[in-house]
């Protein structure tokens, strides 16, 4: 945990730790392939592209991400979801079904909740994109994030960023007046753990404590 008294080591975070681990893993998986025999997991290693790889046909795509403009080399076919995760390093937005059925990839485009898996990054230029990383103010969590923690609004947590992005929009739209309405207007976010009672409580609490 990071706190003012006990800061995390310089240049290290859970995310960079995981990235290092993944890179290490790819090397370990690739090694048996060199020893001959069909290695069942080499396909994993083949999918690792060099860092900074720019595919042919990539264009400059400028996105407004959580208030900052950033430019990436992307192919027109790159979805906003893949751009966020693979190019911008914003891995809070999750890839669940990748077909617009689960809501895990929910982000806000000009303040409205949309599915980043069905949005092309190139088509999102000029729009204000808010991801889960853009909700907290520094170390202070957004009231809806806090509400999900307090109400235990998750089990495995994979759907949670999408749930929270949807929940903040749901409250802003005025669709969180009662349980029935919250269930209906949160129905685009599936939770395979079935943590719905906690999610419902969290949205209610988040709606009550929302700050300006």
């Amino acid at each position: 945990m990071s706190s003012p008294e006990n800061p995390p080591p310089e240049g290290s975070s859970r995310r960079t730790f995981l990235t290092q681990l993944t890179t290490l893993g790819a090397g370990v998986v690739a090694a048996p392939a060199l020893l001959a025999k069909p290695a069942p997991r080499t396909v994993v290693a083949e999918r690792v592209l060099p860092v900074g790889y720019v595919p042919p046909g990539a264009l400059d795509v400028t996105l407004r991400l959580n208030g900052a403009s950033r430019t990436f080399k992307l192919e027109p076919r790159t979805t906003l979801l893949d751009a966020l995760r693979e190019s911008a390093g914003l891995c809070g937005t999750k890839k669940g079904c990748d077909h617009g059925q689960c809501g895990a990839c929910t982000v806000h485009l000009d303040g409205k909740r949309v599915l980043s898996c069905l949005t092309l990054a190139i088509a999102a230029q000029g729009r204000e994109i808010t991801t889960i990383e853009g909700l907290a103010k520094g170390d202070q969590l957004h009231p809806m994030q806090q509400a999900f923690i307090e109400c235990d609004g998750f089990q495995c947590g994979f759907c949670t960023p999408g749930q929270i992005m949807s929940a903040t929009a749901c409250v802003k739209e005025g669709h969180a007046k009662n349980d029935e309405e919250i269930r209906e207007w949160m129905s685009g976010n599936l939770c395979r753990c079935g943590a719905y009672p906690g999610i419902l409580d969290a949205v209610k609490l988040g709606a009550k404590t929302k700050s300006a």
Partner: protein
Amino acid sequence: MSSPFAYEAVKTEADALRVQGGSPSTMYLAGGTTLIDLWKLGALQPLKVVDINAIPLARIEVSASGAATLGAMARMSDAAAHEELAERFPVVTESLLLAASPQIRNMASLGGNLLQRPRSWTYRNPDPTLPEAPGRTDAIFGLSAKTQAPHPSDFAVALTALDASIRLRRGAGERLVRVSDFFRIPGDDPLRLTTMLPGELITAIELPPMLWARGSTYVKIRDRTSYQFALVSVAAVLRLEDGVVKDARIAAGGVGTKPWRLPLVEAALADQPADEAAFAAAAALCREGAKTHAFNAAKPELLERTIVRACLVAASRGA
């Protein structure tokens, strides 16, 4: 990753039509909820995508006569939130609100909604000729050996009941097509779901001046409470005089390979009292021509009961 494509964003109808040029491999991108989904599956393989989101076609206008023009690029959520539209055409608003999820409704355009594909294997894989096993969601009207998948759009069912028209632009020309002629029974050519011509662009949906459409509703029956396609749905519009039905429009979803109008039921409702017994007697005629198999045998009765329920709601509003 799925096949690569080129991308061009346009700002006017004229540019869109010019860039698309009638080419089957150049596809319009509106909300993307169909195109991107099917492209990832390989069911659509555009070589070029024309982004039409900047074209100013999102206006929704309700005129004093009671007619309404819905711009093709209006989002489902914008149309659903339009208060005057909800007052005059509750069947339209309800069909939009009961469809998809809030996120998808924020993205999907009204024009694109009409062009979505059925959610069956035939339409969701690169080879539409692969055989499909019978299933419980299968349609009961407008079947062919090639497809039994019900048309997925709720909005189109409401438009069918209202006898709305679709405004299409192509080159310098424009035409207005009635919804009943816009959708086609797919028959031997499952991928041709509409009568649109190559190079045409939907610019608007026209709702006729129907002051009595206040007496309307959309009832949708699903496997789960929300965020699901219809097993059966009914759009009902009733005009009453002194407790007697003078005019009725009934269309159904989840049962036809295109949005399905039920003229026999409509005729049987006319000049009858607006009560449950009369509604039930008329609704029984919906079974005419229905073809079922072991897995979807419940659909005719489900349809019949849904018609009664929809008529009761429409009558309570139209009285």
